[in-house]
């Protein structure tokens, strides 16, 4: 029996064609007609796995065909690999970075910044015609290479498996290390023994412990950012000025503002205006880095806000969302639950702390841009002490009117796993909301036993 593939219905085409173009960093434009063609003809052929009707696909597109920006984020996701390849062909510089960090300095230095999930997405898209299982097996096989060269206990491997195998043309490995993860700094270091000697390595050293209150920590981190931009310039051959950095801050502030407004709009609705997947994919646009193209993200984000406002005004409920779903807030790095299966079980994901923490952190636009960036970065709520982080999280949980909280950590992620219990303890104590801690396998398909625990929690709620 062949695999059943999802197809966008022609019934929605007309409305979709009335929506906006997507404008990219290089000034090029893609029209709704072209997007529709891709999603209905080219995409299913290249990436059948993404169109597969399969319960185990955790991050599949939402299938909300009446929300044009849902189709657009799907399009940006599917074309990601091709766009990165084309960017490289045009000589664009690409950096490997950490999740949970803003990318303003990279944008200023005309460099595409890709966090681990995006690097994996780039690799995943290089091979066409795979179903979900084949695509996942390919990813796992590649990860084994990194485990072999580093440690099987690694959660993050710094893109080692893709860069050192020569699969991806990444120019520089330059994440904010120690920010929320320790593995990534060991992953960066591991590249020093790999065969690819032309990849630049740089640690942006994120200081720890009450760092935002210490002027010397801010100055040190600012100096790290200055050196980072210098390193990125060595790759591109250009000179990034302070004015470039300020402009990048202004651009990203616009994204952060829009992303925050969109999330708050969503939270303000009596009924969820989208399902979990759409909420996540639209709010994620706020950091502008999610599709490897800040302008494309910004253009979809602007449009998304209009659509969500309209839905909230008209009381439209998101696709496949049941009446009065239990509202779940997710905590932890590089994690998530299977949105559609959780919706089937009677819940909806209303927020996450990861990515959201820095989306809410606006950078001062006047004065030394490096100092301003450093100060804001050291103030990320996610990176503060246990109590401070927990209290910020409680605020988000209250704003989102969550009924339950799940703290998820990936296998091998000791940095987040270590503070999971104290954080959920504080949340439970101060809000009375049920919580639980959940371990996930990074890069695995959404396993039955994992979903079983989530469903039991939803049922309990």
């Amino acid at each position, binding site marked *: 029996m062949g695999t059943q593939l999802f197809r966008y219905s022609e019934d929605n085409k007309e409305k979709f064609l009335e929506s906006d173009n997507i404008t990219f960093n290089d000034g090029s434009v893609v029209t709704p007609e072209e997007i529709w063609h891709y999603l209905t003809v080219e995409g299913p052929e290249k990436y059948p796995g993404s169109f597969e009707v399969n319960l185990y696909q955790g991050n599949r597109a939402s299938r909300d065909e009446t929300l044009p920006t849902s189709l657009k984020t799907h399009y940006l996701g599917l074309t990601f690999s091709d766009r990165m390849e084309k960017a490289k062909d045009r000589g664009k510089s690409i950096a490997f970075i950490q999740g949970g960090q803003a990318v303003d300095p990279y944008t200023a230095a005309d460099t595409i910044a890709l966090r681990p999930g995006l690097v994996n997405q780039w690799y995943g898209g290089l091979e066409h015609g795979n179903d979900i299982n084949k695509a996942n097996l390919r990813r796992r096989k590649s990860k084994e290479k990194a485990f072999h060269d580093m*440690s099987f*206990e690694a959660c993050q491997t710094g893109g080692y498996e893709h860069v050192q195998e020569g699969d991806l043309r990444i120019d520089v490995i330059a994440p904010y290390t120690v920010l929320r993860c320790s*593995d990534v700094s060991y992953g960066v270091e591991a590249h*020093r*023994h790999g065969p690819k000697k032309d990849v630049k390595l740089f640690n942006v050293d994120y*200081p720890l412990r009450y760092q935002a209150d210490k002027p010397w920590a801010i100055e040190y981190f600012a100096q790290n950012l200055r050196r980072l931009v210098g390193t990125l310039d060595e790759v591109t051959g250009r000179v990034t000025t302070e004015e470039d950095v300020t402009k990048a801050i202004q651009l990203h502030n616009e994204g952060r503002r829009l992303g925050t407004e969109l999330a708050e709009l969503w939270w303000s609705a009596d009924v969820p205006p989208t399902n979990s997947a759409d909420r996540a994919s639209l709010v994620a646009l706020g950091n502008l880095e999610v599709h490897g193209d800040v302008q494309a993200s910004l253009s979809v984000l602007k449009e998304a806000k209009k659509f969500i406002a309209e839905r909230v005004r008209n009381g439209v409920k998101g696709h496949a969302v049941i009446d009065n779903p239990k509202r779940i807030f997710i905590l932890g790095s590089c994690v998530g639950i299977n949105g559609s299966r959780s919706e089937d079980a009677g819940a909806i994901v209303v927020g996450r702390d990861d990515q959201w923490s820095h989306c809410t952190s606006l950078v001062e636009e006047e004065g030394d841009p490096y100092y301003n960036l450093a100060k804001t970065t050291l103030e990320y709520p996610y990176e503060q002490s246990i109590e401070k982080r927990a209290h910020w999280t409680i605020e988000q949980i209250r704003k989102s009117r969550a009924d339950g909280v799940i703290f998820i950590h990936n296998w091998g992620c000791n940095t987040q796993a*270590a503070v999971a219990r104290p954080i959920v303890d504080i949340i439970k104590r101060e809000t009375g909301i049920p919580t639980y801690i959940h371990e996930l396998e990074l890069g695995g398909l959404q396993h039955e036993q994992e979903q079983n625990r989530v469903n039991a929690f939803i049922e309990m709620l």
Partner: protein
Amino acid sequence: MSIKTLEKVRKRLEERPEELKRAREDGRKVVGWVGYNVPEEIIHALGFIPVRIAVGGDDRLVEVGARYASSKTCVFIREIVGAFAENQDPFIQQTDFLAFDATCLQNYRAAEVIEYFFKKDVVVLGVPRNFDWDEAKQYFAHEANEFTRLLEERAEAPLDASRLAESVALYNDIRKTLKSIYVFQAAKDNVISWEEVYDLIQAGELLDKQEYLSLLQQTLAELQELQQNPVIEGDDGNSRLFISGSLIPRGDRKLIGIIKSVGGRIVGDDLWSGILPHLDLDIKEISPAGVALAYLNRTPHAALPYLDLASDKRLKKLHELLSESKAQGVIYHTLRYCDPFTFKAKETKNVLAKSGIPLLEIHTEYAGSDYEAMKTRVEAFVEMIKIKSEITEEEGVLADA
């Protein structure tokens, strides 16, 4: 042949918890410290009694710690957290407050978890990862000053420069004496074993520093009397092994015991819990920043990433120590979830292979369930080194003939 002073050291260690208790009754404060870059001299100079919190080998405490800090945290940190949860360790019981550094992120997380769950007063010293940069040194100097200020608050007195100079001189003497003693364990016809020296080093984490120096000097005098000219030779008929990797704290002697039981002889280490922290510590300026920077300038801890393999000071030091000890093989000990060392195991193996030095990685935790499996692997490694050594000897004889 036994060194009489070592007996004294063991006895004094047994008496130490009671002694600490009395000292606290007299108004002294005990500081428990955890880390690699904690400048102990500053703690000492402020009149505190420093004790190093480093316990291992108890899988029950590991389980207890996992309830608070997750089962994904390294075994050593889980046991420390478990020990605070149970509060039965006689040294932990006597601590008034704690000093941690952020060299290893898991160490830092332990500070946070202990502070939160067990309401311990914790002072944390930030440590830069780009430690070889001038800006990082400036940052660390500020951190050292802040660390000192927080300690001064707890001492209710400022740090006196002359007291700091005295503490530095005392600690320098301790380090110098330890280095002299260390040579004896690696020598031919050794009168003290590496295991005994290792215990002696760790005794210094708990004993009064002045008394400890005196005990070390007595040990050295005894050694010099028994063996006037210790000579380190590579072909002494033993499998000469070097231990590297994750720390092996007090209470954890599983691997060390196995090596001994299969006929291996340990002749050196670069462990965080061994000789390494005592080497190359050159304090150029008597100030909190001066002391702290000397710590940072030593061989860096594996938790601090360094991006150029060719100029890595940690690997350079490993080669130097291997050469000094004339070790024939390395047993690279990695604890479960100890990322700083597990991530580098294969790399270190490849680097040493270029110098013809074999490396065996032993990945373990504090449970006893892997004892036999570890023993088989270590035994095979020891045997391999012996055979290799015999072949080299035979080849030498043939070449001479």
